[in-house]
């Protein structure tokens, strides 16, 4: 594919009766070299009745993109927000990379969405000026209307739509730097009403006429296959119409209802070829991290020369387990294979990956596969995989009928892609005054991207640039990575490697403060005292922004004020996805276990598009992070996942949920990531509070075992 200029490409179509329609395609800055060099961000139409339709080309999984992304466009459009309606895009060639992940939706669409709204606004103003035969700079847009104040004339966007659609598109429309009316407002989410009356349709709720239901028995051992199966009893089970092998490692049972498919699956007898991983267990996996060949360590960040530092040496080793996303909606997908085409309705974060993976498996071209995106009952990265969609497409082809594949909770827990295990070796050299002169952090872990076949970036997992930051400008620093192999499937789970890096790094900084006999907040502020820019891959981190986050969290938490007897505080901060976050937690120890009472969470993610939604993201990240810290642990025995449901993999419930206070640093910087950055500081903040309470250092998650 010929690389296309980075200049924005925009095409206008004045479709009859449709009014002004603008489809816009902008190059992705993150993937400029990739073949899909355009990163489109939305699709706008204004009909003659004044209805404004904004297509959301990212997936709504709870993070609010069906509200926040249209707000960005509507702001520059000078739209009346009440006239805006939303349409969800499926997999498309009109839009660039539609992957919803990496806390990227707002930060990567901010500029193109603003530009698209501004282009439409400028064209509407021009249309009005022509209509009135007045200079266009005497006309002004606002509230979906263009006004000529000298004469008092006004025309609505609907009335101007057809005329505006015939005008040329301005290349560089002016953008606002102040005077925001929609962006920054605490607007209610557009998707809330349907989510409280039962009418919202998630993937698992979708149905088409004459649809069948399927449940699959998958090999319980990673990498195993079906050796043989006996379907005699399953075929006798009520409602079952088909039993057949899907790929090498699963057998599908198709029936007239979900329950009958599940009952039919229970009646299967399958002999598994358990393959090379049948004896794999967690003990062995952690052993392999400890025995990894550290001569293969790849340095990914360095400053000064750590070997030159003289003073007291402090060391700490940290460890984290596999974890599962466990979104509330288990895996599912509806597919309808129709010979020369296939239509899919998927709760997916990667509609284009679903399309491109399914097509060759069915003997179709990508353009013959239509992937519609439903609402997601949680994503957290689990739906960056396409497994459920592939299953549905293959089963539909086998039975030549539409089918819904439904996973149970146990299917989800045991056939997931897991947050990788990791081992972290940290060391520091402290001068006589207790301040570090050298700091090293070695992460030993399997590579998610490596396992999926992506090339390392500068020798490390391609996720590290977003997630493995270190913002303290200590004179001598080395961060390096030892890549290990994993037979356990790996996936991107909310905040990805930032959880591991943040836990190890921020626990260790606390150790250094303790070793120096200094207050952990003051210790961090001292390290960040000088305004410094730290170049890290393509990113630039700023000490002043992290310092401000720490100061605000300390102020809101009352860090300097005494606590009631039995209460203890911990603090931690971290930067990832270009955002700075910090937590102060208050705990008490009950029967040797921490009880978290209060979490004050602060984030600097640039300009806030919608404080209402950002507060939700912070609340959610704290609860998600709390589960990660306290209990989330997937263990492997005999090549299988031990945990199966919410009894042995327990999320946080309300009786454990602390009061969460969410704040953000006011900012006019462009927006950065929001969904993931508030996750990493929580686990180390809790562990640092446990240290404050007990003088015992937690060096492995989960805290409760």
């Amino acid at each position: 594919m010929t690389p296309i200029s980075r200049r924005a490409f925009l095409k206008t179509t004045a479709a009859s009766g449709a009014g002004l329609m603008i489809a816009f395609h902008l190059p992705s800055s993150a993937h400029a070299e990739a073949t899909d060099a355009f990163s489109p961000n939305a699709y706008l139409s204004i009909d003659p009745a004044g209805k404004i339709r904004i297509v959301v080309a990212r997936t709504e999984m709870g993070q609010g993109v069906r509200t926040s992304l249209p707000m960005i466009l509507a702001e520059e459009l000078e739209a009346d927000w009440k006239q805006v309606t939303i349409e969800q895009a499926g997999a498309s060639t009109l839009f660039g990379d539609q992957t919803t992940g990496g806390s990227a939706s707002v930060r990567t669409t901010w500029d193109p969405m603003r530009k698209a709204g501004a282009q439409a606004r400028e064209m509407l103003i021009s249309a009005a000026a022509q209509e009135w035969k007045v200079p266009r700079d005497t006309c002004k847009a606002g509230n979906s209307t263009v006004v000529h104040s000298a004469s008092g004339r006004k025309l609505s966007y609907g009335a101007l739509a057809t005329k505006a659609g015939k005008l040329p598109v301005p290349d560089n429309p002016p953008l606002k730097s102040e005077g925001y009316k929609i962006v920054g407002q605490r607007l209610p989410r557009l998707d809330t009403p349907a989510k409280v009356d039962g009418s919202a349709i998630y993937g698992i709720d979708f149905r088409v006429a004459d649809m069948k239901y399927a449940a699959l028995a998958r090999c319980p051992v990673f990498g195993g296959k079906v050796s043989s199966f006996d379907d005699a009893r399953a075929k006798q089970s009520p409602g079952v119409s088909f039993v057949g092998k899907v790929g090498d490692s699963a057998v599908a049972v198709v029936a007239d209802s979900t329950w009958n498919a599940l009952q039919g699956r229970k009646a299967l007898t399958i002999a598994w070829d358990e393959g090379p991983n049948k004896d794999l267990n967690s003990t062995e996996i952690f052993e392999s991290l400890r025995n990894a060949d550290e001569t293969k360590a790849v340095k990914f960040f360095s400053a000064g020369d750590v070997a030159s530092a003289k003073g007291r040496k402090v060391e700490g080793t940290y460890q984290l387990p596999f974890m599962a996303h466990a979104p509330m909606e288990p895996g599912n997908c509806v597919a309808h294979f129709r010979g020369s085409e296939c239509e899919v309705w998927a709760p997916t974060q990667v509609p284009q990956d679903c399309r491109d993976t399914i097509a060759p498996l069915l003997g179709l071209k990508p353009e013959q596969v239509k992937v519609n995106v439903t609402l997601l009952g949680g994503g957290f990265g689990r739906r960056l995989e396409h497994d459920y969609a592939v299953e549905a497409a293959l089963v539909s082809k086998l039975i030549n009928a539409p089918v819904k594949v439904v996973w149970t909770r146990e299917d989800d827990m045991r056939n997931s892609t897991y947050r990788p295990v990791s081992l972290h070796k940290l060391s520091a050299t402290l001068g006589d005054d207790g301040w570090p002169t050298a700091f090293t952090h070695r992460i030993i872990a399997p590579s998610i991207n490596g396992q999926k076949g992506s090339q390392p970036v500068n020798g490390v997992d391609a996720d590290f640039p977003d997630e493995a930051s270190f913002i303290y400008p200590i004179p001598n620093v080395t961060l390096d990575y030892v890549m290990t192999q994993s037979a356990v499937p790996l996936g991107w789970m909310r905040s990805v490697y930032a959880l591991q890096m943040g836990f190890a790094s921020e626990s260790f900084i606390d150790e250094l403060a303790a070793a120096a006999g200094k207050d952990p907040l003051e210790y961090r502020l001292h390290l960040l005292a000088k305004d410094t820019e730290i170049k890290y891959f393509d990113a630039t981190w700023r000490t002043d922004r992290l310092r401000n986050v720490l100061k605000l969290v300390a102020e809101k938490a009352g860090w300097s004020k005494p606590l009631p007897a039995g209460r203890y505080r911990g603090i931690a901060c971290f930067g990832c996805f270009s955002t700075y976050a910090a937590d102060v937690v208050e705990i008490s120890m009950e029967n040797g276990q921490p009880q978290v009472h209060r979490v004050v969470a602060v984030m600097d993610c640039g300009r806030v598009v919608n404080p209402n939604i950002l507060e939700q993201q912070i609340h959610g990240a704290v609860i998600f992070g709390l589960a990660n810290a306290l209990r989330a642990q997937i263990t492997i025995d005999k090549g299988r996942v031990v945990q199966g449901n919410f009894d042995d993999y327990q999320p946080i419930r309300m009786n454990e949920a602390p009061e969460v206070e969410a704040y953000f640093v006011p900012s006019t910087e462009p927006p950065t990531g929001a969904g993931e950055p508030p996750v990493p500081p929580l686990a180390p903040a809790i562990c640092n509070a446990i240290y404050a309470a007990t003088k015992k250092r937690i060096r492995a998650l989960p805290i409760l075992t």
Partner: protein
Amino acid sequence: MPNITLRVNGSEKSVDVSPDTPLLWVLRDSLQLTGTKFGCGVGLCGACSVHLNGTLTHSCTTRVSDAAGKNITTIEGLGANGLHPLQQAWIAEDVPQCGYCQSGQIMAAAALLAKTPHPSDSDIADFMSANICRCGTYDRIRRAIRRVVSAGGAK
């Protein structure tokens, strides 16, 4: 197969399913009342919560034959005339994120307030802990329940 008659949200419905089918799948697959969700299948998460004669019940572990003859209320029928006060409060507080568990959360909260019109914070936490929200909306759920309580309750 036997024909089972159910009374769902005030209407009689007949379904052809085996009597041991969980009520959840009858509501979802046979009656297309998909507001009631599947989360765990074993009564651990509360996503499938409905009311049987006013009592909070996990529809995933209730045989359809045991629901016959009882008044079954789902999220679609919770508000007798328009939205239930809790649903209104859920909108006012903008509670849902992904929203998948919220039908169950609202059904649980309605059962709580029907029995305990003025719950303490620990009453709310104890009762609502039967339901899991993976997005972590607990803070706003608490606020929404308190909003209804302070406005005079759910009736």
